[in-house]
């Protein structure tokens, strides 16, 4: 090991090591991963505070939000209907495009892909750097919308036309334009990243790393990258068309000029449904990585896991119409989309059963990443099952646009994607930053998140079935909703504590970054290649030789092996001579 490190040092000593090249305009995939992670976590704070504003208004309508009078001087901290619409619009926009995508696809995609397939970097390191900076620019543009006259976009994250297409309808002018521009720029950044991921995985795998020896998280990121490459351009085009409608007088979506409002919905959801899987697939991959390590067992049904992800990716293109059952789209199409939506539940069920199969007979270690992975599986089951209600068209007529949908989406993207993201952060932190996170704070963070997440979001199913519409400013304006207002108060208490629990994570993250225990090479006794590189891995990841791969990634507790794990790169007995080729 030390010999390797020495060669690496001399071989790459000539590299430019200026501060700017190392920390700002770095082409090193690991630094870019950290940049995406920091960006995502920073935006999560903004998105989370917006959510708390929304929750406050729903529980105690038209009372001053504590602390908000500093910003909303005119109203003394009380949200007006237009500010409220802006808050939930931007909460979702930020969480989806600037938190989950940068963390799951951006940070874990960049960190895991080269390290886990045995590549020294991405195929196009400069493009990779550009991808981050383009995405960061998009983030700045998106945030700038908060400071323009008329406020930020307020037509929902789905921005249904013609509400979003004609400025008079919302009273928002530049906010919505900047929303379009930011998503357009973000789409370009994401395209750069996805091309890079796909090329890297196809061309740059270490010797012996067949496709079916790849860790499932790499499979998930590979499939996500393909979805990103194909789905994001649809959004990019749609927001460009919307911007043209708003500024250049085209009329794609507004019927006054011959446009078609449903065209926006078709374009948006044609992107939007694959997008849902873009958000969840990497989390599925992370869970598939962590469950075997802490069960000390091979993943159950590796091939079924890989193929079910491929099936999900294909099916994700033909289910989007289930967002539009009551939109005025032809009812026969609705019938067809019911069938495809029911079908896509099958691969998700297969994955869930295989995760349970992995736990079965294992030797489970309840570490923090494992708890979050288990949390992911259980919350994803609830989110998946509530999805089936919506797939059934007659049921969907009633629950469409109610809090039942809000519950469902939060079980999938918070209980699913964000739990997956936390699992991944706790799991790879030692490799990413070379230090261990504090397990006690981690356990507290998990339990507060798990309890208050369910506290906040489970009752949404109940008030949704009770008929509460989403995106309403004040439920007390409706007689049929008044009797369930106590749930809104209950949920807001949960949301406040959920938010407070995140402080534990922030403390743990920054404290561990600077003062955490130094991480050993392989703290979790894991098999995959990233754990053979130093913590944190240097530029180009390994010394003189990249590792050679001899087996699949999940050889835990093999009865013929001495230890309960067998790293992918450990040469079989008698094959040691092949190692240095």
């Amino acid at each position, binding site marked *: 090991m030390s010999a390797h490190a020495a060669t690496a040092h001399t071989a790459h000593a000539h590299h430019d090591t200026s501060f700017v090249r190392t920390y700002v305009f770095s082409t090193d995939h690991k630094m870019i991963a950290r940049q995406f992670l920091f960006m995502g976590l920073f935006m999560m704070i903004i998105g989370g505070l917006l959510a708390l504003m929304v929750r406050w208004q729903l529980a105690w309508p038209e009372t001053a939000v504590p602390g908000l009078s500093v910003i909303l001087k005119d109203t003394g901290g009380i949200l007006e*209907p*237009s500010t409220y*619409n802006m808050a939930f619009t931007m909460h979702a926009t930020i969480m989806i495009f600037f938190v989950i995508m940068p963390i799951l696809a951006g940070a874990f995609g960049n960190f895991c892909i080269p390290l886990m397939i045995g590549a020294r970097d991405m195929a196009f390191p400069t493009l990779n750097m550009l991808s981050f900076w383009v995405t960061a620019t998009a983030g700045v543009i998106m945030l700038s919308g908060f400071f323009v006259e008329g406020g930020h976009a*307020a037509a929902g994250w789905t921005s*249904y036309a013609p*509400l979003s297409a004609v400025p008079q*309808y*919302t*009273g928002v002018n530049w906010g919505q334009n900047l929303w379009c521009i930011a998503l357009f720029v973000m789409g370009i950044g994401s395209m750069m990243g996805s091309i890079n991921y796909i090329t890297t995985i196809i061309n740059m795998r270490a010797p012996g790393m067949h496709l079916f020896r790849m860790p499932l998280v790499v499979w998930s990121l590979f499939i996500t990258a393909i979805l990103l490459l194909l789905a994001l351009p649809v959004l990019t085009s749609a927001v460009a068309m919307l911007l043209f409608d708003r500024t250049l007088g085209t009329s794609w979506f507004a*019927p006054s000029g011959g446009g*078609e*409002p*449903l065209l926006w919905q078709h374009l948006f959801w044609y992107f939007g449904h694959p997008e849902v899987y873009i958000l969840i697939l990497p989390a599925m991959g992370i869970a598939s990585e962590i469950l075997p390590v802490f*069960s*000390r*067992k*091979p993943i*159950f*049904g*590796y*091939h*079924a896991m890989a193929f079910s992800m491929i099936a999900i990716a294909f099916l994700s293109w033909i289910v989007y119409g289930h967002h539009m059952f*009551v939109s*005025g789209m032809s009812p026969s199409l609705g*019938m067809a989309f*019911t069938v495809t939506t*029911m079908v896509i*539940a*099958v691969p998700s*069920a*297969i994955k869930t*059963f295989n995760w349970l199969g992995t*736990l079965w*007979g294992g*030797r*489970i*270690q*309840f570490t923090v990443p494992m708890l979050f992975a288990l949390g992911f599986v259980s919350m994803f089951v609830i989110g998946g099952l509530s999805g*089936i209600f919506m*797939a*059934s*068209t*007659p*049921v969907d*007529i*009633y629950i469409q*646009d*109610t809090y039942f949908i809000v519950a469902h989406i939060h079980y999938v993207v918070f209980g699913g994607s964000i739990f997956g993201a936390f699992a991944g952060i706790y799991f790879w932190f030692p490799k990413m930053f070379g230090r261990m996170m504090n397990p006690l704070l981690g356990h507290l963070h998990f339990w507060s998140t798990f309890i208050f997440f369910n506290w906040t979001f489970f009752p949404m199913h109940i008030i949704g079935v009770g008929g509460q519409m989403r*995106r*309403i*400013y*004040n439920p007390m*304006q*409706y007689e*049929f909703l008044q009797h369930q207002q106590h749930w809104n108060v209950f949920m807001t208490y949960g949301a406040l504590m959920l938010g407070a629990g995140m402080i534990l994570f922030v403390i743990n993250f920054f404290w561990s970054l600077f003062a955490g225990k130094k991480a050993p090479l392989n703290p979790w006794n894991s098999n995959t290649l990233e754990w053979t590189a130093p913590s944190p891995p240097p530029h180009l990841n390994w010394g003189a030789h990249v590792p050679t791969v001899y087996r699949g990634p*999940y050889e*835990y*507790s*093999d*009865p013929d092996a001495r230890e309960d794990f067998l790293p992918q790169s450990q040469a079989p007995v008698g094959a040691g001579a092949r190692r240095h080729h």
Partner: protein
Amino acid sequence: MYRDRPGRRARYTHGNTTLEIVWTIVPALILVVLTALSAPAWSKIKMTRPPSDFVVDVTAKQFNWQVKHPNSDKVFLDEMHVPVNKVIHVDLKSQDVIHSFFVPQFRVKQDAVPGRSIIAWFEVTKPGKYEWPCAELCGFGHSGMRGWIYVHSAEDYKKWAAENLTAETGGGAKK
């Protein structure tokens, strides 16, 4: 049960094809049943609607429901009157953005899309006053865009119509 304890080794298995087949087919069958249950109901609601001579013309706008009853041109705001036990067709239009016709107690919801005219229908079996919110975000006044649907007995409806709808003929059920 499977918590890590010293001295115990995890079960070494890569999977089981029989199990994979079982847990593919069983959920698939359940979903086939759910689809089979959903499809006829959907078809009954949306694809073949019962005929009706009672057509109410509803045009949504920011932030009101504008209602025209059969045989009358008088526009009511946020107020609809219909007889009980009769199939009611609602001819839904919008003059600005997308709204959604939602009557929770009737389990009916249909978006009103500008540039289109979409028929929604319901039949109420109990007279009363029912809340009628808009279910699709339609701007800053979305919350509170709400009407009432009054369901009368046949005689009461006749009486109400005689008193409140203009007597002139020719308006009729438009379209």
